[in-house]
């Protein structure tokens, strides 16, 4: 029994001790992306944060590019370059494939800062220009203790450079841009109800097979009218046509559709999708290659 106890204690120590030691070796965790400006040190006032957030949101609305600001107390021994890259890769600032994101990271107690630039912005925010922004615009203000001013001036300089760069147009707020089946419209019960009525009528008029074909055609036309994407509309129309065909041949008689259609009309909600600004901020899937510059004050 004593041997068993010893083994158990050894096992427990084997589990507990690494847990005590490992946190000392762990890297600083990537902070949560709670907004465009994440300040873990309480340096910026809420007014500063609101103003900065507004500026950055305007940039995204106008140009599509995303800039985020992060202030941490320390990177705990890790150099600021790999830390910034980790944060940038986790937050994925910037649009997917365009990679037009930039991240300003300030490690306040370490007195180091870095501007991490995504692949797509490396033409506008080159290593030289970001180094100049850090040395000539931001650090002089930081040295005199004006963190809010330094950050907002630096961000404005970055925005000025991004403005001059030719980037793909941002998508207008109405289209969510998440792909066809992410649309609220597609799942809108009102539209489904309409499709049911129309397919019922077409079946009565044309018979079961042709009715399904015509329903598919109707859905294709409707989807094309709503979204303008012909290949996606054809795919959706084909899909719906198959379903209607199945329903036509399986259901008995012409009254089959009514019970299915009527229940869905009660919970019709507004269909237009909200623009990305009113909700929470999230990265667009951009990637980073290590470009940018670091500095200290």
């Amino acid at each position, binding site marked *: 029994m004593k041997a068993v106890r010893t083994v158990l204690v050894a096992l427990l120590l084997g589990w507990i001790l690494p847990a005590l030691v490992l946190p000392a070796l762990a890297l600083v965790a990537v902070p949560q992306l709670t907004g465009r400006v994440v300040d873990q040190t309480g340096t910026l006032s809420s007014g500063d944060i609101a103003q900065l957030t507004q500026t950055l949101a305007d940039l995204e609305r106008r140009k599509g590019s995303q800039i985020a600001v992060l202030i941490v107390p320390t990177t705990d021994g890790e150099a600021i*370059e*790999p830390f910034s*890259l980790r944060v940038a890769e986790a937050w994925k600032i910037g649009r997917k494939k365009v990679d037009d994101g930039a991240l300003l990271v300030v490690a306040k107690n370490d007195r180091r800062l870095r501007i991490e630039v995504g692949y797509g912005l490396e033409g506008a925010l*080159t*290593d*030289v220009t*970001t*180094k*100049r922004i850090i040395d000539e615009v931001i650090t002089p203000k930081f040295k005199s203790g004006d963190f809010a001013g330094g950050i907002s001036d630096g961000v404005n300089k970055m925005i000025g450079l991004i403005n001059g760069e030719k980037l793909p147009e941002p998508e207008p707020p109405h289209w969510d841009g998440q792909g066809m089946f992410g649309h609220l419209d597609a799942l809108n019960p009102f539209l489904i109800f309409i499709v049911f009525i129309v397919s019922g009528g077409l079946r009565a008029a044309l018979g079961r097979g042709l009715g399904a074909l015509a329903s598919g055609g109707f859905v294709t036309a409707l989807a094309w009218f709503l979204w303008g994407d012909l290949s996606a509309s054809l795919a959706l129309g084909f899909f719906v046509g198959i379903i209607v065909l199945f329903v036509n041949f399986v259901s008995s008689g012409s009254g089959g559709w009514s019970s299915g259609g009527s229940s869905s009309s009660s919970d019709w909600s507004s269909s237009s999708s909200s623009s990305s600004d009113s909700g929470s901020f999230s990265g667009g899937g951009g990637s980073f*290659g*290590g*470009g*940018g*510059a*670091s500095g200290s004050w």
Partner: protein
Amino acid sequence: MRRLLTILATLSCLSLTNCGYNAIQTNDEQVKASWSEVVNQYQRRADLVPNLVNSVKGFAQQEKDVLLGVTNARAKVGSIQATPEVLNDPAAFQKFTQAQGELSSALSRLLVVTENYPQLKSDALFKDLMAQLEGTENRITVSRNRYIKAVQEYNVGIRTFPNNLTAMVFGYKDKPNFSVDNEKEISVAPKVDFNPTPAPSK
């Protein structure tokens, strides 16, 4: 009966996961792509060197040895072709990483020397070149890390069962990984000398 079972086993393996053949192909391409990125960034650094040498020459032309060292190291790097085939030949890979390591050493010697020339350090062109060099070094580090991850995934895929059988059949070998240059040298503690060498008189 046994023949039937063997045939069934082979068929199921082939149909379900292609015995890992597709996974090996995907990982192989990922390794090649990461390697191209590494070579790309090293090339970017090599392209900066001539400008750097010229700007230092403007202020410190008496530092002939160091400048010559950098120029020669760059020439050596330029003479090595780093195609994806390098990954299949450990000797060629070694040659490539060694040449790049020599350029790194030559550059750091040059930067140490520039500490003695405050006029050079405040020159605008030199500052720009330093910003570009730091950015490029960071990009090199990032691309090396991504290459290391890609090679790890590939090698693990090659060596774990059952895909290692497929790898053996088709002749896929481990891909080389970056090692620390001069491992022996850096395991010796550096000598710290607080008597700086006097700056050469102008």
